[in-house]
């Protein structure tokens, strides 16, 4: 299987990869709300509060462990995004060298703490979104959005983009193959043809996108009905919310590490 097909396959299989998870039975709305809460709490952490970010990381790790989810799989599939996150805050340790703390003989600057904190916040946000996707699937997420009264037009756009991504990858693969066959020995695509290649890919993609939409329409696609969702709110979902929301708030607002430390030190 070439890298393009593999990419398309991983995209398609992502929503079924978490079928064994304990969270599969939980109502999509409960999982969606928990993820949103997690994202809000993580992103609201001050950049020098590394301990709070780490505490949130511990929470997510426990969440994955209990639910039988694999963070490693996420790292493997989305390593490019994690690499991008690394570069987002890379300027911090260079520009802000004011010492913040000393560990042994090593002085850690404020910039370094901010860099690690930014990277961790981004990574945790990515991981939580990934866990939501694999345990809920696109249909479940959109049914949660529908229940939250998000406009149908927006739901339509999200769904079409998602369903269409696979075809876009296929188109890119075809264009890349056609180019390589007529440009032997070249590494990559020469910049002089970037414009025309992207242009032709866009036109072809639009044509295919229209056909995909027609196929969906012909099989009765209507966001209000397609995502109406047959899952009923169950006891497990209530318990899930009752555990997740308070524990999240606990990890975010209480100095968890200090409290654990005080248990051992007795101070």
């Amino acid at each position, binding site marked *: 299987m070439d890298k393009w097909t593999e990419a398309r396959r991983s995209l398609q299989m992502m929503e*079924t990869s978490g079928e064994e998870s304990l969270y599969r039975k939980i109502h999509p709305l409960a999982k969606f709300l928990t993820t949103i809460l997690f994202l809000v709490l993580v992103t609201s952490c001050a950049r020098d509060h590394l301990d709070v970010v780490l505490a949130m990381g511990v929470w997510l790790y426990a969440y994955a462990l209990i639910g039988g989810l694999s963070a490693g799989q996420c790292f493997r599939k989305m390593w490019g995004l994690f690499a991008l996150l690394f570069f987002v805050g890379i300027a911090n340790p260079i520009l802000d060298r004011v010492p913040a703390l000393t560990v042994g003989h090593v002085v850690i600057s404020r910039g370094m703490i901010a860099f690690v904190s930014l990277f961790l916040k981004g990574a945790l946000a990515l991981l939580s979104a990934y866990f939501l996707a694999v345990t809920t699937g696109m249909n479940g997420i959109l049914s949660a959005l529908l229940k939250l009264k998000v406009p149908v037009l927006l739901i339509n756009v999200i769904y079409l983009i998602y369903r269409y991504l696979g075809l876009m990858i296929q188109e890119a693969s075809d264009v890349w193959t056609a180019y390589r066959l007529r440009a032997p020995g070249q590494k990559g695509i020469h910049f002089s043809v970037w414009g025309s290649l992207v242009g032709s890919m866009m036109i072809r993609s639009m044509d295919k996108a229209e056909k995909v939409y027609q196929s969906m329409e012909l*099989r*009765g696609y*209507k966001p209000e*009905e397609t995502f*109406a969702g047959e899952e009923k709110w169950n006891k497990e979902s209530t318990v899930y919310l009752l555990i997740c929301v308070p524990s999240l708030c606990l990890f975010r607002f209480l100095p968890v590490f200090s409290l654990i430390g005080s248990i051992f030190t007795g101070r």
Partner: protein
Amino acid sequence: MIRFEHVGFAYTKERGKILDDLSFTIEKGESVGIIGPNGAGKSTLLKLMVGLIFPQEGSIMIDSESVGKKNLAKIRQKIGYVFQDSDTQLFMPTVEADIGFGPKNYGLSTEEVKKRVEEALIKTGTQDLRSLSVLELSGGQKKLVSLATVLSLEPEVLLFDEPTIALDPKNRRRFIELFRELSGTKIIVTHDLDLILDTCSRTILLDEGKIVCDDETEKILYDQKLLEENGLELPLMIEGVKRRIDYENSVH
């Protein structure tokens, strides 16, 4: 029953009419082949039947319903459309999910959806593919799964746009057998005249958006002059028989 009454259609004014004053009726249970050279308006005709586009002139009736924006859901539940390109028809993560997509959208219960999926898988002989990703299927398998996605809606009318394109001889034969087993009204648009000869009792020959001939399949497909006048050629099967007769005559 499908009735076209003086139907006219143009994509743009500049390009002119693709279909012009088209009238015909297809009765329930008929198998009809629609043939014609490229640009004759064959695929446009199918799109009009399912309301993907609407005629500027005339009307299209499916049973007693006129095809219009208001009753599209009803019309589309009656008519299944198998696309030429299976890749654009299949978009869900697994074969099973794709087949269940239609029935689910029409609000059927989970049990009914499961039942429909199972029946469609059995009819098309694709039970072993149920949990596979569409990307793992061959061209022939994709075509069968595309058909299953439509069959799960239990349509009264089946429309096929170039169904045998890119199929190897074995899969083509399998498709023909399956086509014959299917009940209901069936309409095929194709350049594969041998397929029409194998499967349809009636043929409509289109050229430049008009009906040139509407008759028994054999009458049209054995008429070399008529076919050549309209940019087509004899089916390969008949061509082969003719060559054999010529050869035998030359030997004796």
